[in-house]
C-alpha cells in the first residue's frame, strides 16, 4: 500500500467572460452555453469561497432565484440538486435547463432583477500543491484529516469526485488498496451527506467516520 500523499489547494476565482443575466430567460440561455467549469464553480466550488457558511442552498443558481428573482419555487427545485450524483456536468446542465424551462412554462411573466442584482457567471482555477505530508497507515488517516486545511479536505474529498476514476474520493480510493479490513469505512465515507455543511464541518465528519473502534469510532 503506497503512502497517501496529502495535497492542498487554493481556489482563485475569475470572471467567465459571459455577460451577466438580468432575468430568468437570460440565466437559462447562458447556462445552456457556458463552459463546464462555470457550472462546476456555481454548483461545487461554493464551499471554498468566502461566503456565509449557512446558506439556504449550496448552489448559486438556487440562491439567486430565491434572493433576487424572488422565485422560491424555482429555488427549491434547483436547491435540491446534488451535482455529484450526475455522471458529469453535461448531464447536470441538461437537468438544470429542464427545470428552468418547466418553470418558464409555468410563469406568465419572466422574473427579472434590478441592476446590481444580476447573476454573474464565474469560474475558478484550482492551484494544487503537495504538502509534503505522507500518511503511511490508514489507521492514522482520521488524525491527519483533523490537521488538514479546508483546501486539502476539498481537494481529496470533493474535487476528487471529478477526477478519474470519477465518483470516488481520494480517501476511499486509498483505503480500497488496504484490503477488506477497511471496507466498513468505505461505506461510512460513502454515506456522508456533505450538502449542508461547510468544509470545517465536513472535516469533523470525516475524522469521526474514520476513527477506529478502539479510539472511540
Amino acid at each position, binding site marked *: 500500500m503506497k503512502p497517501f500523499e496529502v495535497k*492542498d489547494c*487554493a*481556489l*482563485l*476565482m*475569475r*470572471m467567465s*467572460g459571459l455577460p*451577466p443575466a438580468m432575468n430568468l430567460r437570460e440565466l437559462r440561455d447562458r447556462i445552456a452555453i457556458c463552459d463546464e*467549469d462555470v457550472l*462546476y464553480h456555481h454548483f461545487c466550488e461554493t464551499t471554498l469561497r*468566502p*461566503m*456565509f*457558511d*449557512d446558506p439556504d442552498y449550496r448552489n448559486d443558481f438556487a440562491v439567486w432565484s430565491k434572493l433576487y428573482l424572488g422565485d422560491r419555487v424555482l429555488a427549491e427545485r434547483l436547491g435540491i440538486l446534488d451535482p455529484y450524483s450526475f455522471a458529469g456536468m453535461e448531464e447536470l446542465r441538461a437537468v438544470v435547463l429542464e427545470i428552468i424551462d418547466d418553470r418558464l412554462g409555468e410563469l406568465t411573466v419572466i422574473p427579472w432583477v434590478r*441592476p*446590481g442584482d*444580476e447573476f*454573474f457567471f*464565474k*469560474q*475558478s*482555477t*484550482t*492551484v*494544487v*500543491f*503537495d*504538502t*509534503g505530508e505522507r500518511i503511511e497507515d490508514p489507521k492514522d488517516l482520521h488524525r491527519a484529516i483533523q*490537521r*488538514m*486545511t*479546508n*483546501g*486539502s479536505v476539498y481537494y481529496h474529498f470533493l*474535487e476528487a469526485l471529478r477526477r478519474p476514476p470519477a465518483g470516488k474520493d481520494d480517501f476511499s480510493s486509498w483505503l480500497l488498496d488496504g484490503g477488506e479490513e477497511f471496507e466498513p469505512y468505505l461505506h461510512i465515507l460513502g454515506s456522508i451527506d456533505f450538502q449542508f455543511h461547510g468544509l*470545517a464541518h465536513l472535516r469533523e465528519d470525516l475524522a469521526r467516520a474514520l476513527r477506529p473502534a478502539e479510539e472511540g469510532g
Partner: protein
Amino acid sequence: MSPRLAAYEAIAGTSAVTQLRRLGEKLAGFRVVHVNSTREGGGVAEILEWMVPYMRDVGLDASWEVIRGTPRFFEITKNVHNALQGRAVDVPKKDWRIYQDVNEENAERLRPLLEEADAVIIHDPQPAYLLKLCPDRKGKWVWRAHIDISRPFRPVWKVLRTFVAGYDASIFSMAEFAMPLPHPQFLVPPSIDPLSEKNRELELSEQDGVRAEFGIDPERPLLVQVSRFDRFKDPIGVIRAYRLVRKVAPVQLVLAGGGASDDPEGKEVLEDVMEAAGGDPDIHVLLLPPNAHRTINALQRLADIVIQKSTREGFGLTVTEGLWKGKPVIGGDVGGIRLQVADHHTGFLVNTFEGAAHRIRYLLQHRKRAMEMGNTAREFVRENFLLTRHLRDYLALLLTIRSRRGDHVVYL
C-alpha cells in the same frame, strides 16, 4: 517561520499559515512590485502595509512604490475615482494630459524596477498609465481595481479602459464590480489584519480613555460609523437615521473619519456633515489623523452597533473591522457590504435611512440577539476575511499567471 507569521497561527489556525508557507516556497525569490498613490490613509495603503512584508516573509522579493503627484493630479484622480463609481464628473482632455504627465514623471523614476520585476501590481486608476510607459517590461502586469466600477460614468471609463486593457490580468474585489476587459479578471476580496493597531485586542482601560477623550457617555448606547468623509458613505443619511432613533432611545452617534492625501473632496463633505449635525452634543464628528488606528479600534469596540450606510461601496473594510470586533453591522445593501453582512445573521442590510433606523431600534431592543450576531460575525471574518486568506489568493494568482496556462486545475 517569521515571528510575524507565527503570530497568526493562534488566530487563523496553523493550517492556514502552513498553507501560505508552502505556496510561498513555490514563489521563492519572485520579484513583485506593488504601486499605488498614497502611503497612508484609505484601505489600499492599509492592505499594502501588511501585504508587502508578509509576501517577503513567505519568500517573495516584494516591494511597494508610491507615485508622487501634485495636488492638481490628486484632484483629477479623485474625479476619475468618482466617475468610475458612477458620478457624472467629466474629466477633460487637459486633465488627462496632467494625469499622463505625472505618470511619466513617476515612470522615469520607477521604470528600471518595474521593467525588471516578475510581476507588477498596479492599484487603482492613479498609476494605471505606467504600463504604457514601460515598454520593455519582462514580467506580468496586473491592474488591481479596489473600487466598484460596474456602472461608471462612461466617458471617463472609455479613456481609462485604453490604459488598462493592455494589462495581463486584472483583479476586482467582487464580480459585481468588474467591467469587461480583454484579459482574465480575477476576483479577490480584501481583508483585515487582526494584529494591526486597528484590529488588535485593546485593554478596557484604553477603550475607556478614548471614551472619556471624546465625551462619550458610558451609560447610553453608541452607534459608530467609521469611514472617510465621502458622499458615497452617506454620513448625512446616518445622522437622519440617528435622529429617528433618538425620538425613542437616548443613543449617541460617532462619525469618525480620516483624511487621505489623495482625497481633496473630504473637507467639503465634512463641512456638510457638521452642518447636518447642527451642534447636537450627542453627535460626535471626529476628523482623525491617518495614524489614529488605535482610536478607531477603540471606537469600534465601544460601539453597540457599527453602521456603514454606504450608497456605493468598494468592499467596505470598516464593515469587516466591525464584524471582527463582534459587532452586528447595519450596512447599505450595496457592493462588498452584501458579501459580508449576511442579513439577519451578521447584521442587517438596509436601503434607506429609515431602514437603518428601524434595524438600530430592533438591535437596541434585542440585546441578546445582537450579541449572537456579533459572535457569528467574528467567526465569519475569521474564516473568510483575514489577511491569511487574502495573501493566499495573491500567491495563487501569481502562481497562476506564472504558469501561463488557463487550465481549471494548475498542479505545482
